[in-house]
């Protein structure tokens, strides 16, 4: 009964986007709307002596100006949603992140004043008249340097700038002992550089306080409107939640950066209450560079030990993780529970210890960015194992096959329990790599590489990964420090005519939920796809939601929908049984109708739904209506995996590296819409490859983001890539009803180390035995590596 599931159904949401009818936050105009511009600190670390707004106040069109001093002390700022404790049990340092700075600016872009005027232009013009007098202080931007004695302090109450330290796994001494007796130890120091998410839609927020209804509305470019509402109401502004509506209309990409509750959202709402007018704030790209939460930024030392056979015996990973100046919503979870817990990878490593020091620096906040922690973990493991293969003169694929965890389906065989606190659901790792090698034509490539002459160096790099998706199980995440449950809700409302409205808490901003979810609903209910409407993104229409992140929408949000469908069909069967004068046990449901087994007596879904709302002839004791809500809280994360292969060609004279081929074989569990899954993989690959080759934020020693525009921060373009070669294997998730795992981040998790490994392979085969080339691997860096 899969008319839609497994098919590449064309997206139902596309029409509005290809005709220019999409409605993003900045497209919304409200009567009487005024515009906000936020004046931001040009300095990374300074004391604000005074702010003079007199001239700006009387500038043309100015409605109001607020500074930190105008915001009541009770409004402390935006909260952090995840608590990680120090090794000694102390609670992490969580300094306030104020809506507007009162005394001290801590990164370039910290908000100093909000200027509200009748037009954007007037707000911007007036901002130039605000006179802020600063006292400058030294800044620190590197996460490791920040923890050294004498480094400039970001917050007075966080000594050595340490937000928390943390470790997981086997005792350090055991790991050290295993490493000491290993036949070979590969050690690597590397930087997983800071990334800027760069969703194409710059962030935007409209706050509107409606005096007539005493109600607040916030339109915002968010991945999870309900979470924003919860945080803003309960922890920031102290507003009654039932009087607040948060809408995430069409959102132009998120990649993690729109998960978090940002100060601008709370600011426009608070200001709107003060002036009783709707206020729109939309950031310029320059502002986005400075204030969208960044990603990655780890400085790591890691050691992997092997026995004489090439079996991994131990792993020690020590990481300094940059938090930026403040703890963003999920920041503490990223280097810890989304990174440390993944260091088992798909290998049988018996001893693992991971040690993380999270530090504050005078930089913008760092939080989840596509993959969040898992790309860093994969990078660590896959760089080490590829490098080890070079050092031990083994084939990198052979070394992996040797160390893979044997297949387990989570049903017949137990889930795999790791040394770092997780139990994988199901996995079958060898076939993805085998398939990738077939696609590459591995032996032929090695032959070609061996025989290469001339002015180019060929290299091949591998990466195999396992990741954790479906960030949800509330009991698990609660034990790990999440301050909220991470379930999902769904309501399936059958209309009297049999049309179905589905309300999901999983917001869609490019993932195609309106299609994928509809496929699930249509197939499960046996009705045409056109009869299903997926509604998301509005806290007034969707009862509740935890939002879209961590590749969780289908596994968690989709499962919640399935639960509601089951309830609908269960009640529908009772009505059908009544109409057919049969017992529910005697009914079969298929293709939109209930049939009495072994007869041709049947009743259609539409008749049942009409009966539910026009219950003239109706089962006794049954409530009218056909409308069910569910909350789904899964038993475990899901664990997709895959194998990625990059082939590069280096120009010996210039170091310019061309990505010639990229092969990705991913196993994301069952697939509802292959076209959409492939699209998710493609996008992830581009971002992961972008990190390896092109992207990376650069702060100078004074804390200035010196590549804060598209003229210097290199966004990947179409001609930076070849066509991607993707395929998949299918190992269903054993614990959710759809058997799905999640596909949103896979491409971004697997690809980065594959590309770096390919460059290192090319260099070694060309006689340059370097351990690392810093990302992004610019031509100059690769060229420099060849000069040694």
């Amino acid at each position, binding site marked *: 009964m899969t008319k839609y599931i497994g098919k590449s159904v064309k997206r139902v949401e596309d029409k509005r986007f*290809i*005709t*220019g009818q999409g409605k993003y936050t900045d497209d919304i105009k409200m009567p009487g709307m005024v515009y906000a511009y936020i004046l931001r600190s040009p300095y990374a670390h300074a004391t604000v002596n005074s702010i003079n707004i007199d001239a700006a106040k009387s500038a043309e069109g100015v409605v109001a100006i607020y500074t930190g001093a105008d915001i009541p002390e009770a409004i402390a700022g935006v909260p952090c949603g995840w608590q990680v404790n120090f090794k000694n049990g102390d609670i992490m340092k969580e300094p306030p992140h104020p809506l507007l700075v009162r005394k001290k600016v801590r990164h370039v872009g910290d908000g100093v004043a909000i200027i509200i005027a009748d037009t954007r232009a007037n707000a911007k013009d007036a901002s130039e008249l605000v006179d802020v007098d600063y006292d400058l202080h030294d800044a620190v931007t590197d996460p490791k340097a920040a923890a050294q004695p004498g480094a400039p302090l970001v917050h007075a109450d966080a000594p050595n700038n340490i937000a928390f330290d943390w470790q997981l796994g086997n005792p350090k001494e055991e790991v050290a002992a295993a490493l000491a007796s290993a036949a070979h130890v590969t050690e690597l120091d590397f930087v997983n550089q800071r990334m800027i998410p760069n969703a194409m*839609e710059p962030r935007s927020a409209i706050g509107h306080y409606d005096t007539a209804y005493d109600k607040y509305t916030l339109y915002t470019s968010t991945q999870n409107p309900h979470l924003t509402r919860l945080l803003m109401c309960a922890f920031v502004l102290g507003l009654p939640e039932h009087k607040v509506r948060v809408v995430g209309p069409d959102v132009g990409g998120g990649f993690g950066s729109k998960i978090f509750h940002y100060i601008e959202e709370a600011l426009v709402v608070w200001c709107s209450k003060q002036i009783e007018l709707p206020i729109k704030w939309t950031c310029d790209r320059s502002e986005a560079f400075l204030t969208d939460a960044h990603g990655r930024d780890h400085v790591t030392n890691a050691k992997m030990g092997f026995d004489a056979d090439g079996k991994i015996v131990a792993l020690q990973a020590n990481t300094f993780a940059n938090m930026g100046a403040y703890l963003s919503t999920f920041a503490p979870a990223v280097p810890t529970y989304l990174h440390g817990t993944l260091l088992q990878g798909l290998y049988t490593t018996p001893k693992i210890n991971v040690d993380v020091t999270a530090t504050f620096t005078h930089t913008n906040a760092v939080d989840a960015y596509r993959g969040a922690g898992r790309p860093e973990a994969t990078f660590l493991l896959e760089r080490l194992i590829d490098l080890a293969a070079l050092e031990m003169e083994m084939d990198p694929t052979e070394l992996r096959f040797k160390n893979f965890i044997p297949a387990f389906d989570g049903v017949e065989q137990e889930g795999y329990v790791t040394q770092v606190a997780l139990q994988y659901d199901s996995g079958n790792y060898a076939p993805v790599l085998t398939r990738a090698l077939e696609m590459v034509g591995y032996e032929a490539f090695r032959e070609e590489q061996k025989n290469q002459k001339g002015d180019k160096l060929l290299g091949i790099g591998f990466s195999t990964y396992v990741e954790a998706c479906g960030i949800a199980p509330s009991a698990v995440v609660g034990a790990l420090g999440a301050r909220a449950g991470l379930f999902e809700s769904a309501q399936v409302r059958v209309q009297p005519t049999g049309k179905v409205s589905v309300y999901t808490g999983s917001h869609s901003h490019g993932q195609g939920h309106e299609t994928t979810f509809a496929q699930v609903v249509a197939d499960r209910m046996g009705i045409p796809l056109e009869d299903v409407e997926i509604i998301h993104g509005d806290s007034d229409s969707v009862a509740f939601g935890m939002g879209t992140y961590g590749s969780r929408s289908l596994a968690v949000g989709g499962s919640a929908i399935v639960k509601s469908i089951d309830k609908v069909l269960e009640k529908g069967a009772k009505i059908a049984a009544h109409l057919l004068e049969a017992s529910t046990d005697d009914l079969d449901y298929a293709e939109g109708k209930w049939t009495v087994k072994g007869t041709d007596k049947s009743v259609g879904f539409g008749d049942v739904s009409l009966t539910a709302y026009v219950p003239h002839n109706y089962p006794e004791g049954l409530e009218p209506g056909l409308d069910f809500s569910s909350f789904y809280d899964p038993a475990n994360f899901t664990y997709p995996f895959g194998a990625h292969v990059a082939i590069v060609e280096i120009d010996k004279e210039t170091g310019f590296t061309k990505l010639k081929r990229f092969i990705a074989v991913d196993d994301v569990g069952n697939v509802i819409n292959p076209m959409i899954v492939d699209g998710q993989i493609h996008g992830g690959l581009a971002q992961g490859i972008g990190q390896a080759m092109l992207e990376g934020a650069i702060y100078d020693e004074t804390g200035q983001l010196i590549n804060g525009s598209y*003229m210097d921060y290199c966004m990947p*373009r179409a001609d930076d890539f070849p066509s991607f070669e993707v395929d998949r294997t299918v190992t269903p998730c054993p614990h959710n009803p759809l058997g799905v795992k999640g596909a949103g981040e896979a491409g971004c998790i697997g690809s980065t180390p594959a590309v770096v490994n390919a460059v290192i392979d090319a260099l070694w085969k060309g006689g340059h035995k370097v351990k690392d080339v810093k990302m992004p691997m610019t031509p100059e860096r690769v060229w420099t590596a060849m000069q040694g």
Partner: protein
Amino acid sequence: MANKISVTVNGKQYTGEVESRTLLSDYLREDLSLTGTHIGCDTSSCGACTIHIDGKAVKSCTMLAVQADGCEVTTVEGLATNGNLHPMQESFKEEHGLQCGFCTPGMMMTATDFLKTNPNPSEQEIREALEGNFCRCTGYHNIVRSIQLAAKKMSEAV
């Protein structure tokens, strides 16, 4: 300073006053409420705001509204004719050339201009033609496929 301008946008004539400094992208979005033209950057890099002036692709954020005086402007809202999607629009849907949809109008406007001068491009030529348009969702893979399909459809239609 206010300037009187008269422009034809998607076949409809508009006359009004604009400040000298008003960018064409802002005029289209704010004055004409044609919000399909998106603004994704401030350095004339991303191409989300690409429209056609007298049939040629231009980044509308890098042109003053007053410069469009007397011009024929086509935005994404004008790509379909008489309710029929343009082959480029059909192809983006068929080949899954969009995800979040934000860069899509600009992509399609650039691509339609490109196919006028190069109706039968190679994959590499298509990739190079997109130099001025950023997409963060698709990895460009299916955008390239979409433009290939559109090229095929458009050449068959001729």
